[in-house]
């Protein structure tokens, strides 16, 4: 299936191109945060509460201070006066949301295991770690609230000043009477409850911070392994009271984020204030164990979804209710994560009425926040799992129930019952193609054969069709959702005197290949070589304007800013070229890097000539500024809505409970593709991350709030040995909401794959009467489900 509607004519966009990011990463030349050489820097290490909930009665640092190399120890109380405010939550989703003060170092009480209560400053990382061993904290352990339902009961209130564990209630029910009527009249009424376990994002690089002060002029440079240097600059300035113009934030090479580096963290502010206090660089590198408890976790929701349908299985209403675990405090955008899914619990199905309600509660666990997909995997999981239940109730196949309910292509742009406008879609072809790729009918026959012969190796097939909203986000929509910032993005295109090009982007990459893709876009349009385009980013001194990378926004928002900045610089070049050619600007064509007078092909000037002319400024049109540079800040008018269908085939061993993924097909539509190689790479990684939720990963807590899977030996990030080759294909349905016709693809794989796998697991076991298996579907969980259903023992 090929693209016929690309706006690109330069022959570069749309074909795979190897990444210019690779050589430094492949050779060790790239500098990640811990690679920075900072002579004279002091290292810090945090003293963290081993208890999920405990009063801090006293802290004795004397033994720590006696350790060779330890310079100082500070408690939360020592630094309390350094903060202009608590750690920020930028998404107060309701006006009465409860937001307990979240200080970088806890004072009085620790509220989760991992909450920092003191900091050791030392001359080396080893000495700092030794110092932590010497800090004696007198804790008074308190009972911990671990379960969200227990939390919601307010049996034990964690933050006394809030008076409740409920952070907020939020509802989206545009037509309550319609919803009530739909369920009243339903022929089929499906009700399902699903649990999204807590997940640890686990980028391979943990977090790290280094702060370099200049005490005499007041400048400060904050290096952080962050996805959001621009947002961080504003937030850190507000939280610490540092004048924003004196603060520079740099994200060096960042080793993955997946949402967990989309935050403002205690360690960033602690390093800043200690750099101020000591007047020398202060740095910190997170250990993996710390990364498991002190960095945000994801998912952690209980969902109930109800479907109303007529006799044919045509949906007439969807109602979803959520109980979301915020953890001990509200992080930067944590309260908004359920809202990012709130509009999508009807999936890609044409439903007249819709209701979503969410209650978010505090627990004594690590705070949660955005993790790859953020709200949309949860929504997709609920509807896609429930659609399989509906198929069973109606007595049709999982494919047929979806086909009957897909939003018809002619209905786009589609006014969704939740109040969104889906930009474009054509869903059925993705299902058809995915079925071809896994040989759906052949696999069904194989499944029947195994069942008929009494095999204990059960085959299961699972479909997940999805649509997601990404390209965060129209600023006015964010305002309507009470988000504390905008969703625009910035780009600058600067054509240098020698016709080399500098691009400055505010979309901060951390593995997504922006340098390559942005170069391709500019090169395609300007007629220059992609290698002659340099993309600058991730440093607020170089790229002062930006909203960074998350929510699959970089291309559809930042790329559109880039497209428009390119337009703007070409228009300026056109005026100069017209002046040089003594023609009118409207009579010029620009193609292949050359301006030509229409109808007079011998009258032409290359962009290089214009660029040098703009630099010398010897003969520019009257009033024109020298040089060729244009900057655009673009605020999108709508989200973009990528979609697709994934199908998983699994084999479940009835005797051991082991689940093996045996085939996987993904057919996705992200509109026009810039670099198909990068699109596929994003899908590969995203799919595996979603499969991992289904089969392997869980932050396991005990009843005391202790994390039992706090390192990579216990938390099962999949290796190559667990994974299989995926079969990918795509369709192309351009978005009409941006000039490139693009949609995001960074989260689609993760959004789609979890329900595909779990539907397959349940499909394998359904003859035993099993309708749900808790995630992750580990051998133990599967065996328990089989035994509970009265199956083989």
């Amino acid at each position, binding site marked *: 299936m090929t693209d016929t509607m690309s706006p690109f004519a330069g022959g570069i966009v749309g074909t795979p191109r*190897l*990444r210019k*990011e*690779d*050589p430094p*990463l*492949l*050779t*060790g*030349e*790239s*500098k*990640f945060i*811990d*690679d920075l*050489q900072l002579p004279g820097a002091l290292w810090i290490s945090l003293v963290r509460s081993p208890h999920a909930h405990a009063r801090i009665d006293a802290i004795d640092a004397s033994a720590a201070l006696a350790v060779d190399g330890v310079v100082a120890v500070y408690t939360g109380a020592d630094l309390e006066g350094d903060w202009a405010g608590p750690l920020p939550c930028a998404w107060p989703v309701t006006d009465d949301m409860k937001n307990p003060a979240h200080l970088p170092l806890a004072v009085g009480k620790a509220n989760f295991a991992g909450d920092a209560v003191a900091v050791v400053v030392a001359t080396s990382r*080893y000495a700092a770690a030794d110092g932590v061993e010497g800090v004696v904290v007198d804790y008074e352990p308190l009972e911990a609230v671990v379960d969200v339902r227990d939390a919601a009961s307010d049996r034990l209130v964690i933050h006394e000043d809030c008076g409740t564990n409920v952070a907020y209630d939020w509802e989206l029910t545009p037509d309550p009477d319609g919803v009530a009527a739909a369920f009243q009249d339903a022929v089929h009424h499906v009700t399902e409850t699903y649990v999204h376990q807590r997940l640890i994002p*686990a*980028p*391979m*690089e*943990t977090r790290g911070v280094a702060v370099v002060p200049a005490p005499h002029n007041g400048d400060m440079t904050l290096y952080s392994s962050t996805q959001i240097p621009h947002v961080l600059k504003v937030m850190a300035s507000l939280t610490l009271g540092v004048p924003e113009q004196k603060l520079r934030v740099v994200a060096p*090479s*960042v*080793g*993955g984020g*997946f949402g967990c580096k989309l935050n403002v963290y205690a360690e960033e502010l602690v390093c800043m204030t200690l750099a101020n206090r000591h007047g020398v660089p202060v740095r910190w590198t997170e*250990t*993996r*164990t710390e990364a498991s408890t002190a960095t945000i976790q994801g998912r952690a929701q209980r969902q109930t979804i109800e479907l109303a349908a007529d006799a044919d299985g045509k949906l007439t209403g969807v109602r979803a209710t959520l109980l979301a675990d915020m953890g001990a405090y509200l992080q930067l955008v944590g309260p908004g994560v359920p809202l990012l899914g709130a509009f999508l619990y009807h999936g890609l199905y044409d439903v007249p009425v819709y209701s979503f309600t969410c209650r978010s509660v505090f627990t004594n666990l690590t705070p949660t926040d955005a993790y790859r997909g953020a709200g949309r995997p949860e929504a997709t999981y609920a509807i896609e799992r429930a659609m399989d239940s509906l198929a069973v109730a109606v007595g049709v196949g999982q494919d047929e129930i979806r086909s009957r309910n897909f939003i018809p292509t002619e209905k786009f742009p589609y006014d969704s019952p939740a109040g969104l406008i889906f930009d474009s879609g054509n869903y059925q072809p993705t299902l058809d193609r995915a079925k071809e790729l896994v040989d759906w009918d052949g696999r069904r026959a194989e499944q029947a054969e195994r069942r008929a012969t009494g095999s204990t190796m059960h085959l299961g097939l699972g479909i997940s069709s999805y649509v997601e909203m990404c390209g965060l986000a129209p600023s006015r929509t964010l305002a309507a959702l009470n988000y504390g910032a905008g969703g625009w993005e910035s780009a600058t295109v600067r054509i240098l005197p020698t016709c080399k090009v500098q691009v400055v982007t505010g979309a901060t990459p*951390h*593995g*997504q*290949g922006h340098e390559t893709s942005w170069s391709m876009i500019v090169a395609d349009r300007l007629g220059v070589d992609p290698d002659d385009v340099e993309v600058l980013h991730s440093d607020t001194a170089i790229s002062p304007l930006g909203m960074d990378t998350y929510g699959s926004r970089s291309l559809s928002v930042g790329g559109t800013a880039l497209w428009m900045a390119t337009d703007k610089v070409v228009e300026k070049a056109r005026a100069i070229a017209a002046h040089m050619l003594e023609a009118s600007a409207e009579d010029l064509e620009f193609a292949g890097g050359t301006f030509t007078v229409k109808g007079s092909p011998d009258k032409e000037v290359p962009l290089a000539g214009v660029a040098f002319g703009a630099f010398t400024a010897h003969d520019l049109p009257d009033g024109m500024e020298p040089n060729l540079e244009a900057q655009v800040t673009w605020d999108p008018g709508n989200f973009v809505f990528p979609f697709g269908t994934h199908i998983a085939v699994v084999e479940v061993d009835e005797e051991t409970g082991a689940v093996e993924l045996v085939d996987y097909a993904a057919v996705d539509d992200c509109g026009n593709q810039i670099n198909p*190689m*990068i699109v*596929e*790479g*994003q899908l*590969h*990684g*995203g*799919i*595996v*991350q979603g499969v991992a939720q289904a089969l392997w990963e869980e932050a396991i807590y005990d009843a005391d709030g202790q994390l039992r899977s706090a*390192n*990579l*030996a216990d938390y099962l*990030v999949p*290796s*190559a*040995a667990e*994974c299989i*080759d*995926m079969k990918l294909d795509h369709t192309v349905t351009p978005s009409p909401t941006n000039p490139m016709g693009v949609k995001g693809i960074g989260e689609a794989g993760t959004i789609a794959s979890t329900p595909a796998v779990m539907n397959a697991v349940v499909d394998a076991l359904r003859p035993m009467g099993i309708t749900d298996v808790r995630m992750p579907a580990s051998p133990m969980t599967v065996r328990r489900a089989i035994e509970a259903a009265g199956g083989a023992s």
Partner: protein
Amino acid sequence: MEVSVTVNGTGRSADVEPRTLLVHYLRDDLGLTGTNIGCDTSSCGACTVLVDGRSAKSCTLLAAQVDGAEVTTIEGLATADGLHPMQQAFHECHALQCGYCTPGMVMAAVSLVDEYDDLDAAGVRVGLEGNLCRCTGYQNIVRAVLAASE
């Protein structure tokens, strides 16, 4: 204590605490920061280097244990003529995204290809089980290692 190692063909030595891990010796004492650290439990393989030609997790060895040995880090693979074939294969197969696991993954793959003839996809998958990548889903890594093994 004084630890002397031949690193990437050059004799290096430094005075370190006896408890110094090899990876910290390489990174902090020799300034070879291409070798990364991704965990506390020898699980992720980001720190993989070659010790006397065989892959080893440098977070799991003390610097003192390799005194007198030959160590190759990611900085020692490419030559003036260009990338090592394994690095080139990773580039051509889009086998890296954020690139943090990449130095360790490449070193492990170099050792794997050196140790086994006739590697197939399943062999590569099992052989790289000790190296985690969160970005790529491994599909292109497997492709790259097979390409480089030919």
